[in-house]
């Protein structure tokens, strides 16, 4: 038999064993779907579109209602109702019922008219560091709009037509246009990371225990006594798990497309290529762990120590630019970083292979290096 035939022979044996272990098989096939769904749903709420808020109008003048109405035109805040007292607003905030209270102080409108220093007050829940700046931004825009309108009206009263008045005031608006991911949805940002983490978690764990399991059961002894080569064992073990992982890639992409609105279909071949390459890097990592572990327990331990830092350091949840300079080099050691960067480019700005070729190359490099390393660390002579 040729080397290829022996690899196939070893792979067939692995497949038999996998298929015979029904409980694990179900777990292997169902867990990715469940995990992707759960992770995705958990992070979906991180996307704060409407911040629950109340308004306390202590001014009460007819003009102040213009301000109140202005707030309700912004999508970012949801004015649940108006409250009557400061205590009520504070109470709601303290109980986490609302994230912000907008307070129009007594005499606010009069102060504006008379040109005094008028101050709108915001009570914000600082424990939620994402919603506070958003409310601040909305309040600023409301006041700016009110001021502009007031100035134009003032000029009109002095005989200046509104269009000329607008030119006189020349209000400055910052017009920013967000190019990619226009809704700036956190979910679409983080979903590639979630896909990567799910794929990696399973494959590393599954692969890591395969060789120590044979070692513990004694079957490795019998295998080592035969002329089968290290490469034949390693690749024979890799193949079936690669097959399973491709199945998982398909289901995960399906879940991402159906339930989380990630545009998978547009760039399916490229996404499949990225996922398969990434899965291979994870399998190779698992095999490397497998080759150096004496027991299954040890293998799982090492796998956990590998998978955990990946969560934090690979830019799956947040851009790696947020990681301090002296730690960031570690991020470049994780294939997940290149994978989520590339998938993000593909799903958020419809990048093609030319735009992500660097990441594709690096992932390919990881596969070759890790596999080679695994073969080298796996000794046929035992001590």
């Amino acid at each position, binding site marked *: 038999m040729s080397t290829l035939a022996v690899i196939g022979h070893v792979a067939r044996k692995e497949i038999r064993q996998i298929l015979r272990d029904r409980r694990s098989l179900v777990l292997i096939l169902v867990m990715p779907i469940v995990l992707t769904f759960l992770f995705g749903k958990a992070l979906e709420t991180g996307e704060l579109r409407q911040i629950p808020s109340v308004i306390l109008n202590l001014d009460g003048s007819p003009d102040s209602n213009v301000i109140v109405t202005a707030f309700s035109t912004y999508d970012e805040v949801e004015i649940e109702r108006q409250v009557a007292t400061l205590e009520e607003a504070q109470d709601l905030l303290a109980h986490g019922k609302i994230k912000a209270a907008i307070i129009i102080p007594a005499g606010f409108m009069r102060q504006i008219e008379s040109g005094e220093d008028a101050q709108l007050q915001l009570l914000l829940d600082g424990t939620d560091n994402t919603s506070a700046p958003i409310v601040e931004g909305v309040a600023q825009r409301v006041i700016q709009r009110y001021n502009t309108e007031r100035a134009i009206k003032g000029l009109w009263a002095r005989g200046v037509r509104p269009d000329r008045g607008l030119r006189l005031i020349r209000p400055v608006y910052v017009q920013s246009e967000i190019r990619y991911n226009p809704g700036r949805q956190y979910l679409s940002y983080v979903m590639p990371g979630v896909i990567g983490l799910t794929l990696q978690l399973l494959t590393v764990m599954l692969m890591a225990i395969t060789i120590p399991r044979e070692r513990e059961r004694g079957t490795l002894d019998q295998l080592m*006594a035969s002329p089968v080569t290290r490469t*034949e064992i390693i690749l024979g073990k890799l193949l079936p798990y690669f097959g399973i992982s491709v199945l998982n890639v398909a289901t995960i992409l399906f879940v991402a497309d159906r339930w989380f609105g990630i545009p998978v279909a547009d760039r399916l071949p490229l996404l499949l290529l990225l996922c398969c390459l990434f899965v291979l890097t994870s399998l190779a990592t698992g095999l490397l762990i497998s080759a150096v572990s004496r027991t299954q327990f040890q293998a799982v331990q090492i796998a956990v120590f590998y998978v955990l830092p990946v969560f934090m350091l690979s830019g799956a949840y947040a851009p790696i630019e947020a990681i301090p300079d002296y730690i960031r080099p570690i991020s470049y050691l994780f294939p997940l970083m290149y994978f989520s960067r590339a998938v993000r480019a593909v799903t958020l700005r419809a990048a093609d292979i030319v735009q992500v070729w660097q990441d594709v190359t690096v992932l390919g490099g990881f596969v070759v290096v890790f596999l080679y390393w695994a073969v080298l660390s796996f000794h046929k002579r035992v001590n």
Partner: protein
Amino acid sequence: MPLAIETTNLTRRFGAVTAVANLNLGVRAGEIFGFLGPNGAGKTTTIRMLCGLLLPSEGTACVAGMDVTRDAEAIKRRVGYMPQRFSLYGDLTVEENLDFFAGVYRLSRRQRRTQVLETLERVGLADRRAALTEHLSGGLKQRLALGCALVHVPAILFLDEPTAGADPLSRQRMWDLLYQVAAEGRTILVTTHYVEEAERCQTIAFMHAGRLIGAGSPDQCRAELGEAVLEVDAVPVMQAAEAVRATPGVSGVSVYGHTLRVFSRTAADLPRELEAALTSRGIVVRGIRPVPPTLEDVFMSLTRTAPDVERGR
């Protein structure tokens, strides 16, 4: 006759412990060679070196004409190995295990089919071919393990305690198989604790504390024993053993049921001296007679007189 296995000063150390020390061994092609010795004597370590699983620390070994250090992988194609511990896949069937091991020995699909069938018949597992291996009894597992070591038709078989824990019937069955295999001209090196199994070998070698302390055919071993054996029938037997042990000229005593086996280098006057010593203590002596030594006697005598290997060189 050419030598199938030959070792020269074969030595293996694990850290400070010398598991095998300066082993010189010659196994002729086609013979059943028995390896005897207590646990930890270095039998398994020797076999693992001969199979190419373990590198020698010093010395050389040739198996099927090839050097174990240089040509380990080539040796693996020519030999079969049955480890001490059951090492087959419990979640594969009998037939799948045989087919898998035939495959890793690079047998083609056609060769595999005929070899697997033949081996199933030979080890008597044809009717259990579809059974999961983990459901087999101990004796059947051992036969399957032998089958897996045989399926690629090796020239040399290494069997590490192939009958450990087996009942007498299974053991008999296993030995019938081994004789068949040897009759085909294949060499078998087998380790065992059972002295009666050693009787079945053409050549036996005794190992103790990493050293070879005696070798030859069972008859040679018995003939060359440097001690005479006396059978002493006396009651009460335990007190008798104590008294015998204290008698000058006695080098060892073992209790066998109601009799004692007494080893001595100076046999001539011993029976009379023993009788005197025993009766003086009020022990009833029913008989003292010289007996031909058994292999067990040889083993006990050799183990007792062998110098311990100085460890931690």
